[in-house]
């Protein structure tokens, strides 16, 4: 039944919120051109930027942070803040494999520093690797000591990957199919036997 299309047509009709306006909608864009807008270019990326080589990693892996647009040869302070990943649904039991992340006590992660520094080169760039010791959403904020430029980025750290489950939900399928096939084969054999016997009885199977 395509009846819903009737209603579709109506719904569309209601999009007519736009009809009068859309008439004007039609109007094109006298977009500001570069020459008549003496503004600093409104384009990202902004002066300083902080990027990662991978936005999500598993616990135990290392991420590389790259900073650009800072002052030349300056020290950059990097601060890490950790928050849990999206809270689990209320009725969903938490598991202990780290994949459903709770706020971890700060003392626990002493091995991965929550603040450290990097040194930029003459072009105002730096690279720094970081190995988190906790799962969750990590926010890195880098601030140049002299330039005072700041940039931030995020990293999601998931629990250690687990080997795929050895048995999937479909595991019963094969034995079932096998069994079904055998029953089917049995039935065919039985029928064949019956056919053979009836043919013999009426003497139709004989070549004579």
């Amino acid at each position, binding site marked *: 039944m395509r009846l819903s299309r009737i209603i579709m047509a109506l719904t569309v009709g209601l999009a007519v919120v736009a009809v009068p306006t859309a008439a004007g909608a039609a109007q094109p864009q006298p977009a500001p051109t570069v020459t008549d807008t003496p503004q600093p270019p409104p384009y*990202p990326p902004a002066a300083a930027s902080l990027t990662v080589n991978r936005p999500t990693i598993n616990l135990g892996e290392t991420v590389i942070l790259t900073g650009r647009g800072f002052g030349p040869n300056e020290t950059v302070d990097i601060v890490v803040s950790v928050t849990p990943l999206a809270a689990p649904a209320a009725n969903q039991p938490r598991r202990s494999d780290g994949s459903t992340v709770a706020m971890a006590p700060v003392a626990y992660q002493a091995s991965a520093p929550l603040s450290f520094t990097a040194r930029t080169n003459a072009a105002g760039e730096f690279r720094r690797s970081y190995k988190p010791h906790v799962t969750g959403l990590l926010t890195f904020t880098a601030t140049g000591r002299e330039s005072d430029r700041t940039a931030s*980025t995020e990293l999601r750290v998931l629990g250690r990957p687990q080997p795929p489950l050895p048995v999937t939900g479909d595991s019963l399928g094969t034995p079932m199919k096998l069994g079904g096939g055998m029953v089917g084969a049995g039935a065919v054999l039985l029928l064949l036997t019956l056919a053979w016997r009836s043919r013999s009885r009426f003497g139709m199977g004989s070549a004579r």
Partner: protein
Amino acid sequence: MVGSLLLVTGGWVGFRGWQARAHLLNAAGLARELSAQVVGGDTERAQRTLAALQDQAGAARGATDDPGWWIGRRAPLAGDNLGAVRQIAVAVDDLARQAFPTLLRADLTSLVPTEGQLDVGRLRSVSAELSTANEAVQQTRRDLAAVSGDGLVSQVRQALTDLRGEIDRLAGLTSAADQGARLLPALLGANGARRYLLVSQNLAELRATGGMFGAYAVIEAEGGRVRMGRQDSTASLGQFTPPLPLTKEVRRLWTDLPGIYPADVNLTPHFPTAAALYREMFRRKTGTKVDGVLAVDPVVLSYLLKATGPVLVPGAVPLASDTAVRTLLNETYQRLGNKQQDEYFAASAAAVFDTFFKKNVNPRVLLSAFDRAVTERRILFWSAHPEEQRTLGDSRMAGTLPERDTVPTVGVFLNDGSGAKLGYYLRPAATLSVGECRSDGRRELRLRVTLRSTAPKSGLSKSILGLGLAGDPYTVRTLVSVFSPAGGAVVDARLDGAETALGSGTERGRQVATANVEVGPGASRELEVTVLTGKKTGTGKAELWLTPTATPWTTQVDTAPSCDQ
């Protein structure tokens, strides 16, 4: 004696059941016909088809409503099935008698303005009718939901499932139509004058929701009458220091840019954020408060021009459906100086506005143009009145980035990084494949985004080349932001096979990774991204949400079986 009675009853019920089945089959066929006739605008025939449909549905209901059937429903085993068939017959009959006639009666043409005015009185009566029809559909839906599917033979169970699916969809549509019709009079100034900002997204300079808000016009609505007021370019709004307040999430992704420049408010794909910022900037600059923001683009115009035919612009090339996008997004910048560009844009806007209100436009063609534009997310609307915005909800027109997914959705949003009008030359493509099921309940998705540039190597005007921030002015720099499904993650990204630096952040429960993709003239770059769904997502389905572009995306989604199978 008892045996023969049972046999006779059984035979009778079987006969009536067979009749009911035939009537229901006929009704389904007629319903399809009716739908085609309504879409085709053949009202007279549609009325006749509806009468026949009512006949058949009534007969099916009648066949399942006699003493024999009543006894049969009390019988073991067969009883539930007979009951379900009866419920199906009743549901179809209710729809044929209560909902469809109202829907057919509702006059679509009353939804299109004549002489620059929409008849609010007629709209109100259409709204009341829609409300009745919606009530009938919702009631039928509740009745059907109460029928238990347990213990039904597969044929009947399938019929029940199918019907429920159809009615769910129908109910979704009628409730949307009902809410929309209730909203419309207020939006059009039936309860007091309204003022909106109409912004035009310039697809030649990409932003996440489409293009930079290049120009605006103030639209005033009162008592259903609509007129176009002041027009100006976004550049006239200047810039804002200190920046307008932004959410922490948006600031982390885009720094303060969306709060400083009106041209950057839609670096985020969440239209309500962009619209609210633009409204506030307009208020600070002009002192005028508006009730909402409506965004459209030149592709919408090209669809509408199909309904009107070409529009003559005094002293310039006419605007036609096939050429409008090229004329507005490319040729104007290539051929005309800055001042002439503005004059041409203003003249063509006025000409188009006049045409829509003075010419007799075929309402059906117009409505299908709107349908297409809304589906492609090229018409976006935000209301500054919270209760109206709530009614708009998650509909496509609201441009809301949902915080939850019904189907895991990967967003690919483009923002221009070259400061130029080169977006017109981009040919984007995206392929999304559903991958392996992981032990942590997430599912891996593989996304491949290809950007090809058809820009020439030389000969473009200064207006098109703009700031040339990519270094070579003919190279298009595009910031490609990949949004994970809700609760998911972006794992890694490779540009032409090599690891690439990624900006990373979060917006509305989705991880966002942004890569810088620079495409030289005639060249093509490929970004491959691995994405994870949220937890407990075994489904093999996936969807893409993309920035609408001047040349539409080529897309492909490869689904997979569910992890539970």
